[in-house]
Every structure is written in C-alpha cells, then in structure tokens.
C-alpha cells in the first residue's frame, strides 16, 4: 500500500471533478468579490483608512470562503455515497484525508489568486510577496483543520451550521498570526518575522495533529 499514490489519486480525482464541473471556484470567486464590496460599504472606506481596514477584510473573506470550500469537499462525497465506496477499499484513511486536504488547499489557493489582486485593486493596498507568503502559510494549517472538521460534520445533522461552529475557534490562531503578518507587510505596526515563525509552528502542529486524528474521523 503506497499512501502517497493514494493521496495523489484522491487529489487528482477532486481537482479533475472541479475542473470539469466548475461548481465551486467561480461561485467562491464571486463570493469573495462580494465580500470586498460589503466590506467597503460596511466600513465606509476612503483613501485614508483603506490600509487599516484591508487586512481585516482580507481575513474575513478568506475565512468564510474557506468554510464554504471545505464544506463542499466532503458534502459532495456524502451526497454521492462515494465516501463509503472509498473507505471500503484497503487504502489508508490518512492518505485519503491527505488527498482531500491537498485538493481543498488548491481550491483555496485559487480563491486567494482572486482575493489578493482584488484587494489590491479595490483598497489600494500593496500586493507584495510578503503578503502572499503569509496568506499561503496560513492556508496550509487552515486547510488541514477545515478538512478534518468537514469530515466530522459530514457525519452529523445540521452540518452547514456545525462546520463554522467547530472550525472557527481553531482558526483563530491563524487569523491572529496571519493578520499581524499581513498588517506589517502592508506597512502597519507588527513584527513580520515573529508572525511568520508562529504561522509555521501552527502549520506543523495542526498538520501533524489532524493526520493523527484522520483515522478516527474517517474510519466507519
């Protein structure tokens, strides 16, 4: 049994399905643009305060887009009863989990490719490599946690409600550290190096923990 091969097969299957149907990405991109629009009206943004508010709106949009994206990854398997078929095989649940997490990460990165330029255009914030790097680092840990809780709520009732309820508290550390990193990268106070270091620590911690938990969440 080669777990890397299994993970890659699951990843390719998900990406290929999304590429053919284009069910999630266009809707999410639209969602992100709308979030920026609402942010603009909600905060009465002008040239002077845009730089202060932009990082917050970035994380709000990213967190809620992420919830939708991760919710879909397992909801689709559940509706088609294909999760059972996949788990019936001798493939390791951890490898299946890794494949789903990679596919969800790819999905969120595509959304970020819309979000970051849109933020730069609408709010006039700098789109630097530092900002992109911080957001990508946060994406890794958020995806690991998001997919794990998506797998959990796929097995409970009222799952649309339960996913944010369980996931958001665990994402807070990423929003705090990522928020500080993005703020400082956009010229506001904050220690960029320290925030990036924390993000890396959180990524390692939660990727390891979710891999350990995957067996209990997916099996049966």
């Amino acid at each position, binding site marked *: 049994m080669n777990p890397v091969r*299994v993970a890659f097969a699951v990843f390719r299957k998900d990406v290929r399905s*999304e590429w053919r149907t284009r069910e999630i990405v266009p809707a999410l991109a639209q969602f992100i643009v709308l979030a920026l629009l609402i942010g603009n009206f909600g905060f009465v943004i002008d040239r002077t305060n845009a730089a202060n508010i932009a990082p917050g709106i970035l994380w709000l949009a990213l967190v809620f887009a992420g919830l939708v994206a991760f919710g879909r990854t397992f909801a689709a398997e559940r509706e088609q009863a294909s*999760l059972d078929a*996949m788990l019936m095989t*001798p*493939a390791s649940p951890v490898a299946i989990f890794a494949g789903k997490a990679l596919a969800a990460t790819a999905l969120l990165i595509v959304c970020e490719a819309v979000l970051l330029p849109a933020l730069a255009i609408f709010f006039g914030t700098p789109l630097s490599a530092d900002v992109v790097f911080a957001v990508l680092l946060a994406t890794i840990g958020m995806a690991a946690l998001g997919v794990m809780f998506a797998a959990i709520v796929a097995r409970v009732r009222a799952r649309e409600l339960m996913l944010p309820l369980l996931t958001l508290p665990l994402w807070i550390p990423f929003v705090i550290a990522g928020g500080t990193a993005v703020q400082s990268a956009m010229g506001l106070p904050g220690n960029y190096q320290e925030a990036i270091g924390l993000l890396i620590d959180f990524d390692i911690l939660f990727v390891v923990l979710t891999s350990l938990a995957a067996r209990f969440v997916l099996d049966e």
Partner: protein
Amino acid sequence: MSLVVGNGITHWFGRELALEGVDLVIDTGEHMAVLGDNGAGKTTLLRILSTMLRPTSGRLQIAGLDAVKERRRLRHYLGYVAHATGLYPALTAAENLEFFCDLQEVARTRVEEALDVVGLVPMAKRRAGELSRGMQQRLAIARAILHEPRLLILDEPDTSLGDDAADLLTRVMRDKTVVMATHDHALANRLCQRTLILRHGRSHGTASRLHVVK
C-alpha cells in the same frame, strides 16, 4: 470450506433492533440470496458483512479474518455494491474505475476487463453523470469486481438493471462467493443455491430453493 461464518449477529440502531441473533454460514463458491420485506434487516446485514458497520454483538469471520478487528486486511477480499452507486458524475466511466484501481492497488488493465463483464466498454469515455441509472448500476458493479474479491456483496443489484439483469448477474457472479439481497424471489431462485429469509431482523432459516411465496 466456509468462507463466511457468523454467530448471533445483532445490531441496534438506537432503540431499534435491526438484526437479532442472525447465524449464517456461506461456503466458498456459494451464492446466497437474502430475502425479506423492506426493513427486515437485509441492508444492515449486508453492511455488517461489508465491514462498514459493526455489529452491536455477535461474531463474524470472513476468510478466517475477524470482520471487526481485522477489517482493514479483510477489505482486500470484499466487493460491495450498495444501494447508492457512489460514482463521481464528472469523471468518465473508465476514470471512475481507474481511481478505484489506484485505491485497490490493482493494475489499470483491470478497467477494460471489468467494463467488459458488465457490457459497458462502449461507454468507457462517457461521464458517469450522463449514463442512465441502469448503466450507473453496472458501473458500480464493475467497480466492486475490479480487484476480484473473494466475497461479493450485492444489495438489490437488480434495481434498474432492466430485462437482462439475470444474465448480467450470472456473468458477474460466476466463480465467486456471493451474498445478494433482493425482493425478487424468481431471481433469487435462478441465481442462488440457497436463500436466507429475514423477518423483522430475525433469521427464519435458510432454504435450498424457495417455493413458498410469503
């Protein structure tokens, strides 16, 4: 040689007793039908046999392996066609099977062979979502036999298969040990040597050929 030996298999769903003390023995190469009304426990029994559901109590051994403790190893030997087909609608018929070849660790040449058994070779490049319900059922059967399982578990496989259901299933079941749940007494008589009758979750014994109709 008995491939499946189950003793006192019992399952509770909350306060509902779905199966009560079912004993069953299936010999290698035997085809066994499971007959019963809706809610008699057919699907529960099949899900327990497929290791996807743990019995509340009782023992089940398949191919000498414990169905609870050694289920991961056991899954190499099991093929299961559930009620829902669980196919990926955006992938083609062949891609659906190729994906499961990767998970089962069998060569992709098996795709062509499995499609041939269920008569879907001309549809290999069509997306699963575009196939008719009957063809989707065939594809699900092809997926279950990719790895040449020792025990094939079929939950009402004749649904939506149409007129040639019996011929197709005969081809699929040849040289395999099979448990098949069905409503259709005639089909059970034709395809299976033995029938297990379930009523309200209890086994009412087995018969070699079924002549009583309820």
